[in-house]
């Protein structure tokens, strides 16, 4: 993108005007500078991590050797994977229910399903803390069952997003396809599997990625539902940040950023940028 236009700027080419470019450039610097600095300083050979003292990868070794950190990351990935699978099923089923059927209290149920998106995280966290305390949820289960409470909480705030995405995709479904399939002798299940699922597949991919990132990202709700043995990556990083700012946190963060970038590019390959933008 040349900073100065070679051809005259047409009236609607706002993005080609100079001040617009500077503005967008400044915003991008604002968004990325902190992350870039974080990544650079993960290679900094200094304990206090304020002054650049030379290149090293020893903090990556340290982060990888930190059993608690690795365990936390493993917990996070397990929870995210489980929450994504269940959210996909629940979310898709709820979307089909709302799209296909007319039933009593429909708008109330519709509203309730999207409530977990609106209710502040802190309130949801508090609610789960109280709920699991009230039902005496067992806390001494073996891995991965001890992650159950956190996973349940994550599913509750992830699946409404899946419902939302799948529903908007279902709106473009031509019901005559379903009719045709049925006329040709397909059962309900076959119609669902061979006609409906292929149609909503892009939405399922988008919903899965959304759930996975939301789950991996969540701190507040997890903070209220996790016990001493069920630390997730954000909770661990939180306690590390509270204690001190060390390059080890930078190294661990850089690894997670890499994972995010990789996931985003998988999403791009599968979906294209525009489709993903529309899911937000």
């Amino acid at each position, binding site marked *: 993108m040349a900073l100065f236009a070679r051809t005259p700027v047409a*009236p609607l080419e706002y993005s080609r005007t100079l001040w617009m470019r500077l503005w*967008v450039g400044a915003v991008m610097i604002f*968004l990325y500078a902190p992350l870039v600095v974080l990544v650079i300083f993960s290679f900094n050979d200094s304990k206090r991590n304020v002054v650049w003292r030379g290149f090293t990868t020893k903090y990556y070794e340290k982060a990888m050797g930190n059993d608690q950190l690795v365990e936390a990351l493993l917990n996070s990935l397990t929870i995210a994977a489980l929450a994504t699978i269940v959210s996909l099923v629940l979310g898709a089923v709820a979307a089909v229910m709302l799209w296909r*059927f007319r*039933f009593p209290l429909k708008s109330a149920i519709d509203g309730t399903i*999207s409530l977990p998106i609106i209710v502040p995280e802190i309130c949801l966290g508090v609610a789960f803390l109280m709920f699991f305390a009230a039902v005496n949820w067992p806390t001494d289960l073996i891995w991965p069952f001890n992650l159950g409470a956190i996973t349940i909480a994550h599913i509750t705030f992830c699946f409404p997003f899946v419902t939302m995405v799948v529903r908007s995709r279902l709106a473009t479904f031509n019901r005559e396809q379903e009719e045709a399939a049925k006329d040709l002798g397909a059962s309900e299940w076959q119609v669902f599997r061979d006609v409906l699922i292929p149609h909503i597949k892009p939405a399922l991919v988008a919903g899965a990625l959304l759930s996975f990132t939301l789950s991996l990202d969540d701190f507040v709700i997890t903070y209220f539902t996790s016990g001493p043995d069920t630390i997730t990556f954000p909770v661990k990083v939180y306690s590390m*940040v509270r204690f001190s700012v060390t390059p080890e946190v930078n190294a661990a963060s850089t690894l997670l950023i890499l994972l995010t970038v990789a996931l*985003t590019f998988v999403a791009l390959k599968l979906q294209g940028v525009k489709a993903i933008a529309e899911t937000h």
Partner: protein
Amino acid sequence: MAEQDWKTNKGVFAAVSLPTLFWIILFFLVPMAIVWLYSFGENKGLTEIDISGTLDNYKRATEWLYLTIFGKSFAVAALVTLICLIIGFPVAMAITFASEKWRPWLLLGIMLPFWTNLLIRTYALMMLLGTQGFANKGLGALWEGTSWIKTLVGLQPLPTWEPVQLLFNNFAVVFGLVYVHLPFMVLPLYAALDRLDRSLIEASLDLGAGHFRTIMRIVVPLAAPGIVAGVMITLIPALGAYLTPDLMGGTDSQMIANVIERQFKKANDWPFGAALSFLLIYAMFALIAIQSMRKKVPEVR
């Protein structure tokens, strides 16, 4: 074809509705109901809570101290939303009118931070804003550069490179919340602007209106639903923000979520925390009600 009545196909309806209803009732409505009930309770002993139907918790929440915290949270969230709107609108415009080649990359540029872990982004910002951190020249220069560009475009200028207290105060909270929530604002704005009929803008320009006037009189009204959606999508999480004020704020920059958290961790006053939680939820509902009353706009996504 219209929606099917549930009675005509009970088997399929049961299959799709029972799992959803089961989950939403057991793992959402029941926990919320527990919070609601506890908000009318009082502490009896260390762990025992008696749900006595008392309104004391709500009375306590209307004490001056808590009212100011609520007020301050609203003010901070509103300010953050306004800043995000001012910064985000031109960005959304630029993305909308960018060439086919550039648009996906600009969108990706906005979305990638959105997908990045919130805690990592907050931590990155803390590193950048730390007082004694980054005194070295390389980063000082980067800082100055950022500051220079920011002042150039009329943004809040970053202070000149002196050990200024940038962290652990109200400035840091607003800065951090803007940083975190900017993508929330840009994406719905873009979605609305992208649907705009461009010939209307061309007509306005042809008829002699300037760019600024066209934007204010044509683009903004037409994109109003998107702007409202962007405002709500930014305002609501900003109001309930916990992590940013907790990590980046000082002792006087506590927001409502931090006060709620304290009732459950340090103060161990669950009924009062429950009452505060529900007041926050009511505030959200009020905001959404106001929004849907003002104009019939599409659901907040």
